[in-house]
């Protein structure tokens, strides 16, 4: 009786682990490689072609990602027509390398998960390219900018299309390189150069985690392909899988700016605004969520690693939200909000089969509204002579009507206003979180309230309240090439929720992430939704009282509470890094340098010193007097002869 109970309990807990078993690519899918190749070709032409491509480079750089988008769309429509079990397609391009037992092919995998990512990356990416034509119009290095953008998109596409972890790592590193080049695009500014370096170095820490995870996978399974690892993962020990999971999480933390590797994200705002939009919406920070979701066949069997993901995600979603409340820089405020929203996605991914689909759903809707708001922020900066301080804005809604309306759509989506895309996606994650763990769910709900607060603050400071800009500034609406992408993205921000209609996205993704019967949350779903909306309204109302009802000073007040000071200083993220990593690191290096100088150099210098001393003494034998040489020759001959005689006797 009791055994039977245990067995049923075990069967309940044990999820079905989906195995990646793709079919051979045919028809439209034989063009898969072109999706990556087109932007890569663009990057090559623009970066190698030099000034000869200055005149038309930006058009080429925009057309190629659009080409990738068209192919992605054709593939997507194609895959919709197939049976659910038949939606994984692989294309083998060539054998990449074969060393010892490691056999890595250049294989691409198209399945529902990569399908969603392809559409997001190429779709939103193309819109950002179009916008950049206008935004970077007066930059003398615009052609190079488009070359880097294309490289960024190509690397991200490689990341989501690869069928093995080594290929994913190639894209992963490419994304890191492209982000470095783009964050530091205005390299004449020391702050931009430093921000690029910071992003690169912190990303290296994460990359190390991913690299070690891949090594461990190879040692354990003897393969790094998704199909191989997913088929073998059930046979490995839980400890090993936990280690792989935690190392993958380290990688995801670096790329997705999760605590403790979050410090680079706010500094990355030094790059041109379209780059921020690209990093935050379509590429880069979503890679961590992709990695966790893609590796579901490992995380499902590694409960400790999964718990670690949830903890990291919960801390980050609150951390980012708190940062967002204190920033006066509109882009940094948005960056804090990205960190927080990625936290929600990681939370969804960490909650297991019930959450993967919602994590990806939120990732998609976030891609729409965050790209929309970043590009909107760029449009505002364009109007305000590149001033990013929201305390210098105010009352812009009449002067920038298109920007205002589109930004408002993004705003309503991110705070989760009922009916907008973010409402559906965030609500689902909170619901799953409440079902799995009450504390995490409550913290996620509080995070939603803080989101309502800081986004309302941003909205009010920028578009409402009294005007606070100087007389010399003449705000004006951006050209059509910039506003049209905004309008498209705003429409997507509003309508993105449609993907949840009839649970479509959950069913669509189930071949990749598995499917679990819906568990009942502690409260009815509608009650949870109402509570979340009320909490958000509370946050928004508080912001309204604080910023709309009172005058906003042009300078940030200095006499503020400790909490505000801490939030302004990124919750001392840099200071913590400094104490834990930078200072011990530099002390270690100093000690090593001393050891090198004293011990290693000492040994060599001491040895050579002795030889030098002997030589110094011996050179006095060379007197220059022929007769003394003759004497030594004679003496030598005598000694030789006497020795011979002595030996013979």
């Amino acid at each position, binding site marked *: 009786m009791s055994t039977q109970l245990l067995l049923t309990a075990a069967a309940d807990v044990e999820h079905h682990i989906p195995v990646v078993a793709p079919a051979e690519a045919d028809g439209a899918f034989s063009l898969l490689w072109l999706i990556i190749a087109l932007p890569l070709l663009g990057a090559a032409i623009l970066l190698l072609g030099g000034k000869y491509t200055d005149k038309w480079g930006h058009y080429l750089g925009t057309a190629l990602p659009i080409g990738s988008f068209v192919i992605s769309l054709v593939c997507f429509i194609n895959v919709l027509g197939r049976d659910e079990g038949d939606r994984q397609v692989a294309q083998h391009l060539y054998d990449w390398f074969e060393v010892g037992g490691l056999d890595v092919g250049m294989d691409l995998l198209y399945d529902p998960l990569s399908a969603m990512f392809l559409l997001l990356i190429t779709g939103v990416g193309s819109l950002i390219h179009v916008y950049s034509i206008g935004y970077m119009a007066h930059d003398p290095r615009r052609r190079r900018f488009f070359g880097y953008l294309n490289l960024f998109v190509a690397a991200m596409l490689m990341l989501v299309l690869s069928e093995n972890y080594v290929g994913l790592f190639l894209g992963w590193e490419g994304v890191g390189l492209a982000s470095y080049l783009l964050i530091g695009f205005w390299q004449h500014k020391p702050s931009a150069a430093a921000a690029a370096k910071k992003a690169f170095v912190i990303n290296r820490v994460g990359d190390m985690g991913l690299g070690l995870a891949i090594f461990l996978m190879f040692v354990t399974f003897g393969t790094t392909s998704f199909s191989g690892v997913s088929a073998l993962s059930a046979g490995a020990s839980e400890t090993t899988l936990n280690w792989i999971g935690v190392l993958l999480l380290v990688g995801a933390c670096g790329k997705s700016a999760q605590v403790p590797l979050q410090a680079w994200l706010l500094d990355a705002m030094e790059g041109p605004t379209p780059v921020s939009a690209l990093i935050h919406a379509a590429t880069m920070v979503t890679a961590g969520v992709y990695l966790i979701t893609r590796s579901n066949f490992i995380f499902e069997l590694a409960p400790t690693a999964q718990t670690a993901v949830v903890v990291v995600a919960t801390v980050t979603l609150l951390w980012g939200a708190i940062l967002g409340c204190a920033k006066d820089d509109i882009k940094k405020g948005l960056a804090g909000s990205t960190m927080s929203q990625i936290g929600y996605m990681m939370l969804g991914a960490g909650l297991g089969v019930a959450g993967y689909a919602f994590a990806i759903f939120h990732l998609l809707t976030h891609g729409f509204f965050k790209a929309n708001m970043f590009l909107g922020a760029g449009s505002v900066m364009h109007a305000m002579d590149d001033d990013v301080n929201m305390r210098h804005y105010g009352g812009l809604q009449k002067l920038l009507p298109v920007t205002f309306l589109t930004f408002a759509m993004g705003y309503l989506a991110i705070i989760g206003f009922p009916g907008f895309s973010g409402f559906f996606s965030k609500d689902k994650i909170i619901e799953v979180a409440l079902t799995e763990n009450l504390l995490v769910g409550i913290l996620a709900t509080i995070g939603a309230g803080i989101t309502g607060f800081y986004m309302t603050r941003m909205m009010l400071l920028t578009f409402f309240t009294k005007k606070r800009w100087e007389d010399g500034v003449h705000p004006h609406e951006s050209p059509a090439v910039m506003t049209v992408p905004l309008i498209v993205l705003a429409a997507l921000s509003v309508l993105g929720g449609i993907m949840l209609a009839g649970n479509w996205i959950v069913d669509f993704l189930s071949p990749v992430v598995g499917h679990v019967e819906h568990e009942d949350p502690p409260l009815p779903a509608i009650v949870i939704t109402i509570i979340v909306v009320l909490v958000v309204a509370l946050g928004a109302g508080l912001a309204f009282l604080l910023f709309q009802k009172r005058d906003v000073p042009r300078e940030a007040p200095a006499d503020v509470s400790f909490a505000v000071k801490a939030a302004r200083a990124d919750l001392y993220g840099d200071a913590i890094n400094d104490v834990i990593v930078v200072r011990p690191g530099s002390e270690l290096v100093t000690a090593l340098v001393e050891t090198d100088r004293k011990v290693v150099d000492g040994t060599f210098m001491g040895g050579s010193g002795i030889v030098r001393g002997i030589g110094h003494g011996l050179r*006095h034998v060379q007197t*220059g*007097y*022929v*007769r003394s040489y*003759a004497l030594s020759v004679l003496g030598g001959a005598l000694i030789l002869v006497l020795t011979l005689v002595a030996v013979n006797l």
Partner: protein
Amino acid sequence: MSLTPYIVLSAILFTIGSIGVLTRRNAIVVFMCVELMLNACNLAFVAFAHQHGNLDGQVAAFFVMVVAAAEVVIGLAIIMTIFRTRRSASVDDASLLKF
């Protein structure tokens, strides 16, 4: 015929030559002392050749003479040059090549 007197004479001549090389400063005299040493060697060669009854030592003596002749040519030329530049044939004066 006893070998001993020849060897003793050869040794005496060699010793005189080497002492001359070590003690005299005049390059010509040093040179002559070197020749004396060579000839002392020749004497020993010839004496031993006679003793053993073959020609090996005598051939060696011829070789020494040929080398000595060549050496004289070069050595005298060098001494001439040194004398022309320094107005002296003292070997101790030509001591620039040192530490």
